[in-house]
């Protein structure tokens, strides 16, 4: 049995706020940690492993790093993992927690994400690579003079995908339409209005060919997960969700060999499926990272839900809508409509997959007999450098 199959996701919590004017960043970390532990039926004193990424207080900005948040939370640890993979960090943390548990390094692993970019005034289409990663990266002097923004980089992937495969803006729009159909049932979703393909393609262009409604929301809040050993899992009352496969891959342009219509999911996906011993056709529900509509389309192809270049046809006509299409995706409304806390969507991807496996999704979007789910994160910028993380989860 692979190491990953020896751990369970026992606690989940998504912060209900979408704008945290009155809260500090560390406070948000503490609130989501409390929520996930309460959901699991565990307490802070049970936690012996902690996992966090670059969003922790005092890390993305000058400060003393993860020790600050451990101190703030008052955690007593025998295992700490600060793996940073941008928005996909939290899926990597689940995989690392499973490995650490299998190796006997900890029994109860807490993973937190929090942020408040909306309270700090961030606006769609304005985040520059300079702000995202600073000036010290070796490639910075060869990229930052050209003023790339995150949306501009993903827009080039969409433009190239359209050129190579004939993908259309209307097909991309279906991904947002599906998210909005799901978000109407989520009382916490930032955007709950159902939109049409016409609404998306008629919304203002931010970076051609991506429109405003092709972009994810900017929200505050966060989420937390509790990953536990089999012994701990057996002592708890919620339906048991087991981690049965995990795959990870960074992808970049090796020495300037551009290939921007596929992601690291071409490698992370097969690794996760092989470890789990299942295929894409077995998956009942998928949480797919949706920073932009094009992120979803490319990832679905790369994970093998359809062939490369056929993502446009796959996502069209409501195929991602629960109860309508073949593969329900992001039934919480995703980053496109519900929540993208701290500009990092990986945490909420895991949370909704666990809800589906427990049968705790909203009844209007709950997938029947959902016993096998996939969650995927894309951290960084797809055409330049990013890390892809895939998890396959099973209800026992």
């Amino acid at each position, binding site marked *: 049995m692979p190491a990953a199959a020896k751990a369970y996701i026992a606690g989940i919590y998504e912060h209900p706020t979408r704008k945290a004017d009155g809260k500090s960043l560390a406070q948000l970390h503490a609130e989501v940690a409390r929520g996930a532990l309460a959901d699991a039926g565990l307490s802070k004193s049970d936690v012996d492993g902690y996992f966090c990424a670059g969003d922790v207080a005092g890390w993305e900005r000058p400060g003393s790093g993860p020790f600050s948040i451990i101190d703030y939370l008052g955690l007593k640890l025998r295992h700490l993992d600060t793996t940073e993979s941008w928005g996909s960090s939290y899926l990597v943390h689940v995989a690392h927690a499973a490995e650490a548990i299998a190796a006997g390094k900890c029994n109860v692993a807490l993973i937190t994400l929090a942020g408040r970019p909306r309270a700090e005034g961030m606006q*769609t*289409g*304005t985040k520059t690579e*300079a702000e995202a990663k600073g*000036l010290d990266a*070796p*490639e*910075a*002097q*060869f*990229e*930052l*003079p*050209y*003023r*790339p*923004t995150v*949306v*501009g*980089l993903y*827009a*080039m*992937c969409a*433009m*190239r995908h359209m*050129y190579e495969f004939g993908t259309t803006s209307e097909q991309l729009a279906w991904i947002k339409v599906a998210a909005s159909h799901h978000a109407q049932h989520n009382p916490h979703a930032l955007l709950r209005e159902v939109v049409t393909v016409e609404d998306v393609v008629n919304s*203002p*262009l*931010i*970076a*051609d*060919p*991506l429109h405003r409604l092709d972009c994810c929301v900017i929200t505050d809040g966060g989420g937390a997960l509790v990953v536990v050993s089999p012994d701990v899992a057996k002592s708890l009352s919620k339906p048991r969700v087991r981690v049965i496969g995990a795959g990870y891959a960074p992808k970049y*342009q*090796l*020495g*300037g*060999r*551009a290939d*921007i219509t596929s992601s690291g999911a071409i490698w992370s996906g097969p690794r996760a499926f092989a470890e789990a011993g299942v295929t894409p056709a077995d998956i009942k529900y998928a949480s797919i990272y949706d920073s932009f509509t094009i992120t979803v389309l490319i990832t679905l192809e790369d994970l093998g839900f359809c062939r490369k270049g056929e993502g446009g046809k796959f996502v069209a006509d409501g195929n991602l809508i629960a109860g309508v299409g073949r593969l329900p995706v992001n039934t919480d409304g995703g980053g496109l409509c519900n929540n993208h806390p701290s500009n990092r969507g990986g945490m909420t991807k895991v949370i909704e997959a666990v809800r589906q496996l427990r049968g705790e999704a909203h009844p209007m979007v709950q997938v029947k007999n959902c016993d096998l789910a996939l969650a995927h994160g894309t951290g960084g910028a797809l*055409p*330049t450098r990013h890390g892809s993380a895939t998890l396959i989860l099973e209800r026992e």
Partner: protein
Amino acid sequence: MTLDAALPAPQPNPETQAYWDAAKQGRLLLRRCNACGEVHFYPRSICPFCFSDDTHWLESKGTGAIYAYSIMRRGLYPFALAYVTLDEGPSLMTNIVDCDLASLRIGQRVRVAFKPGGNGYRIPVFIPI
């Protein structure tokens, strides 16, 4: 659309100073590995393909084709962010300037030009041929 504002300044380091010095003279430099023969960008002293340290500067002809682009519409004025694939092989991030943005196409032939950057440096950009 003419790019009239200065582009953000590059921050050269000892490994890359020659690249930016050449750009001031209107030359675009790439890096080639003597061990494996591969040309790479951005330039590194150690080859990212074979890890040899036997690399040297190679002057690009400065011509290539648009690999991908996007019209960035959130600033004071729109501009074209792009990847250009040089005839020597590597692709690089750049801006396409001095052109009708609406006329840009993937595959379009372009040639390098140099625009003022900060700190007295000049930035390689591309213009449709």
